[in-house]
Structure formats: structure tokens, C-alpha cells
């Protein structure tokens, strides 16, 4: 007969199991007399994921817990690894977009844009103005769609179910727009080196404008429902604060970095496509806790809405793509090109050897570093906070594991 007590409370630290080898070892299992009749306590090692409602994919967190307080944490990645970087070595350059779509699958346009920028820069293709505006328009629409997913799931992690479906309602309109333009709701395959596949269809302008007019009010409603809720504020304020030097040391980008106070935005500092011609603000936080990240992302949605209106108003005439050969052959060289995706800096590093396939393809994603920083900031928080922190960092396992 198995003694249930031995199953629930394991003895031995993670290091003793032989499967855990971090740079910084966790606090070892302590048997400390707690002062009440000399009772000893032990730490519990809990496995959060990979099948878990709140880890936004298949993220595995091994957490060492003292009661409810986290003492150490380890992230275990790779459950969604599909070999995108290796597959890219057997794809041609115009087919790489299909792979990038499946990295960060919620904001696919940004990945496709990164590849397109890299190839255009290597081949010195000049993209016509209309194509640049269309790409920027689609990118900002995708940014709002991705932030709505983050918003919905963040609230769902806290237990509020309502605003997840309201966010989905708005996202459905955006996905309809994207389907009308590109043909699919998620795996667009729309942005190619040289421009985009097809011009904007008739009537899309009215469709996008009607969404924008409605979304102004809906965004405020979302913010009132979740951010205005005092219970949510108590859960989120002061939780998961990342100091600036930690954020820089771990390579965080995007809203996670801007929430700590460092205002680096690839759209403004290393602009591409139509961003030099648009007017937008970059929201920056102060202490980098979950509340700051929440506010930065809500403000980013408002700024994206502003940019969409500017793109529609200023859409130039012209071709939707430059004249590029059907089969792209890139001369020997190496390039790194980055875009500001909704999760940080999405970049591609391509080493070309003169053939139609890249020799080496590296996909830099923003969520990987957010996963790494979890090990640094989780200790000291409670178990319920772990869920909040993972949710506030907006991790997408597709681009972490590739």
C-alpha cells in the first residue's frame, strides 16, 4: 500500500534529481524548525505545465514553493519545437513567410515583415510607397489583434471571464478584415519580399474605418472592465517588478522593456516601412511591474488605432509590389533585420550563400527572453502571482520554441 504522504511531499532538492542544472542553484530543501512545537517544514516542488490553463501554450515551470511563496523557479522550454530554423534551410526565400507565420502565430504579419525586410535589404529592392503603407496598416491591425488576445487571456488568468469574450468579439472584426485582405485569418502569407501579394480590395477602407470608430469606445470599455476593477488592481500593482538593468541584461524588448522605463521601440528608433512618415507616441512605464506592462499595452492599442487612421488617410497611389523575380537568389552575405512585433523585437538573421535557400536562418523572438527573466523575478512572489506575471509578460510559445 503506497503511503500517500511520500507522494505528496518529495524530499531532495531539484539538483539531486539530476535533471535540473541551472546557473544559479535553487534554495535547497530546508528542514527548519518553525518554532511551533518544533514542527519542521519542507518545500514543495510543483510542476506548472506544460498542460496548464494559464501558461499560454506549453510552457513548463518547475517551481519550488514554501507554502505559497515561491523560492525558486525554472523554465523548461521546447514543447512546441518544430524546427522552423532548420526547415528554413530547405525553403526558398519567397516561401519563408509561411514559416514565420507559424512562429508567433497570433501576430503573423510582423514575422513575415521581418523576413521581407531582410531579403529586400540584401537584394536592395525598393518597395513602392503604397506597399509600405499597406504593410504598416496590416502590421498595426495585427498588433491590436495580438494585444486583444493578451488582454483577454490576462484577465482570464485572474478569473474574470467576461472581458476575454469581449476582446474576442473585437478580434473577430479584425480577423475578418485580415481575411478579406489576405485570404486567411491567421496564416496570412501576405507580405513578401518586394511588397505584398495583392492590393487592398474594394470596400476595405470602409470596413476598417467602421471598426476604428467602434473600437474607440470598446477599448475604453475593456479598460474600465479590467483595469478599473479594484480587485484586479490589487492583484497586479507591484507584482513582478523588473529592474531596468535586469531587463537590459536579459535582452527584453517591446512592451516588457518599455514598462521598466527604457523607451526603445524599433518602429521609432530603427524605422522601416511607412513608420518614418507616421506620427505616434511610444508609451513608457516607470517601475516595470505587471500594472505598468498592462498600461503600456493598452496605450499601444490606442496608438495603433491612431496609426491605422493615418495609414488610411494617407494611402498613396501606386503598385502593391516591386518587380521581383519569381525565384529569388540572394548573393553571399549576412543580414539581421528586425521589426517591432507585439511581443518585442522580432528579427531574422539570414546568412545567404548565393543559392535560392538560406544557408542559415535564425529567428530572434521577444518572448524567449521574457521566459528567461521569469527565473529571475519569480522568487519572492506567491504562487498566484506566478500566473499573473506569466500573463503580463505576454509570452507566446510558438516564437519561443520555434
Amino acid at each position, binding site marked *: 500500500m503506497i503511503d500517500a504522504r511520500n507522494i505528496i511531499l518529495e524530499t531532495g532538492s531539484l539538483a539531486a534529481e539530476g535533471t535540473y542544472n541551472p546557473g544559479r542553484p535553487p534554495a535547497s530543501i530546508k528542514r527548519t524548525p518553525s518554532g511551533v512545537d518544533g514542527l519542521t517544514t519542507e518545500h514543495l516542488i510543483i510542476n506548472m505545465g506544460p498542460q496548464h490553463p494559464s501558461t499560454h501554450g506549453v510552457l513548463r515551470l518547475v517551481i519550488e514553493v514554501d507554502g505559497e511563496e515561491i523560492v525558486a523557479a525554472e523554465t523548461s522550454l521546447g514543447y512546441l519545437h518544430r524546427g522552423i530554423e532548420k526547415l528554413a534551410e530547405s525553403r526558398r526565400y519567397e516561401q519563408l513567410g509561411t514559416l514565420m507565420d507559424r512562429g508567433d502565430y497570433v501576430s503573423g504579419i510582423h514575422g513575415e515583415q521581418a523576413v521581407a525586410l531582410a531579403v529586400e535589404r540584401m537584394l536592395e529592392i525598393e518597395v513602392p510607397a503604397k506597399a509600405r503603407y499597406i504593410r504598416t496598416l496590416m502590421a498595426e491591425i495585427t498588433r491590436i489583434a495580438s494585444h486583444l488576445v493578451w488582454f483577454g487571456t490576462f484577465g482570464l488568468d485572474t478569473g474574470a471571464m467576461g472581458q476575454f469574450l469581449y476582446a474576442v468579439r473585437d478580434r473577430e472584426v479584425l480577423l475578418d478584415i485580415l*481575411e*478579406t*485582405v*489576405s485570404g486567411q485569418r491567421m496564416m496570412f502569407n501576405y507580405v513578401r519580399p518586394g511588397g505584398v501579394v495583392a*492590393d487592398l480590395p474594394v470596400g476595405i477602407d470602409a470596413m476598417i474605418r467602421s471598426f476604428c470608430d467602434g473600437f474607440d469606445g470598446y477599448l475604453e470599455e475593456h479598460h474600465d472592465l479590467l483595469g478599473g*476593477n479594484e480587485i484586479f488592481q490589487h492583484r497586479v500593482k507591484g507584482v513582478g517588478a523588473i529592474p531596468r538593468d535586469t531587463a537590459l541584461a536579459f535582452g527584453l524588448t517591446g512592451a516588457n522593456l518599455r514598462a521598466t522605463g527604457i523607451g526603445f521601440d524599433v518602429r521609432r528608433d530603427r524605422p522601416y516601412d511607412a513608420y518614418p512618415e507616421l506620427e505616434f507616441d511610444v508609451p513608457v512605464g516607470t517601475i516595470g511591474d505587471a500594472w505598468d506592462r498592462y498600461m503600456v499595452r493598452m496605450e499601444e492599442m490606442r496608438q495603433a488605432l491612431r496609426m491605422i487612421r493615418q495609414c488610411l488617410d494617407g494611402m498613396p497611389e501606386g503598385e502593391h509590389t516591386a518587380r521581383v523575380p519569381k525565384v529569388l537568389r540572394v548573393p553571399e552575405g549576412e543580414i539581421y533585420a528586425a521589426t517591432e512585433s507585439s511581443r518585442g523585437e522580432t528579427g531574422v538573421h539570414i546568412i545567404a550563400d548565393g543559392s535560392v535557400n538560406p544557408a542559415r536562418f535564425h529567428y530572434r523572438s521577444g518572448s524567449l527572453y521574457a521566459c528567461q527573466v521569469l527565473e529571475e523575478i519569480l522568487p519572492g512572489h506567491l504562487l498566484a502571482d506566478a500566473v499573473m506575471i506569466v500573463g503580463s509578460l505576454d509570452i507566446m510559445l510558438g516564437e519561443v520554441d520555434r
Partner: protein
Amino acid sequence: MWGSGLIKGMRITMRNMLRGPITLKYPYERYELPERARWSVAPTFDAEGNHKCTACMSCVRVCPDHILDLQMTVAEDKSKHIDIFRYELGACMMCGLCVEACPFDAIHMSHDYELAVTAPEDLTYDLLTDTAAARPKREPRPAGAGSTPETEKEADDA
């Protein structure tokens, strides 16, 4: 006052409740797909009901996952007869590269998304002869005289 946000939140959910549901009761109600929606690949037939494929192999070469395969026999008068045009629907990611590559408009993306079958072997079709692939259940609106132009450029040309 502490708690005003809570009351406001409850008003918002009640307001949304009174707005009514936004869901479609599928399968009794179906969604109208936009023109460019990409679902399974289907051949385009001309007015006499013949397919337009000339076995140029452009689509076969461009498919990223090597789903299309064409086997043909060349007769003495150099005409090509297509034996098998294999299309693995189960692996197709509906990227549309094959349709873009075809110079003869012989294939198009249909709007058929109800593609589920009970055995995985049934997902490999012959594109030109198998009814399930050749005659999909839903098609985009045929573009003809009087249909709305697709892009503004076409509207200007017309």
C-alpha cells in the same frame, strides 16, 4: 470611492448581456466567406468542362511542403496526358503559392472548409478526378460580367 470600479464593471457586463449574442448557430447558420478566402485547392474548369492544366509543374515546384505531385505520359505528338495529379489535402497549409504560380489559371482556392473525413487515407485526392477535390462544396462567387471589381485598380480599368 473604493468599489466604484466594481460597480462599473458589473454595469458593463449587464450592458453587454442586453446587447445580445454575437455567435452564429453553426451549422444551421453559415458564415459568408470573403472573396479571397483560401481553403482547399480545386481545379478550374472551362466552358466545356475540361480542366486547363497543361502539366507545366510550376505548382509542384513551388509548394513548400511538396504536397502536389504530377505524373504524366508524353505521347508521340508531344501532347501530355496527366496520369495522376496527387494532392495531399491532409498536409496542405492553404498558403496559396501554387495558385499564384500557375500561369494558366488552372487551379484556384475554393471556399470549402468542411473537409473532415473518417480515415486519413481519404485525405489524399487526385485533384482532377476525385469528386471531393474537383467539385468542392463551396466556391467563391464566379467573377464575370457585372461582378464587383476586386481591387481599386480593376475598378479604374473597367
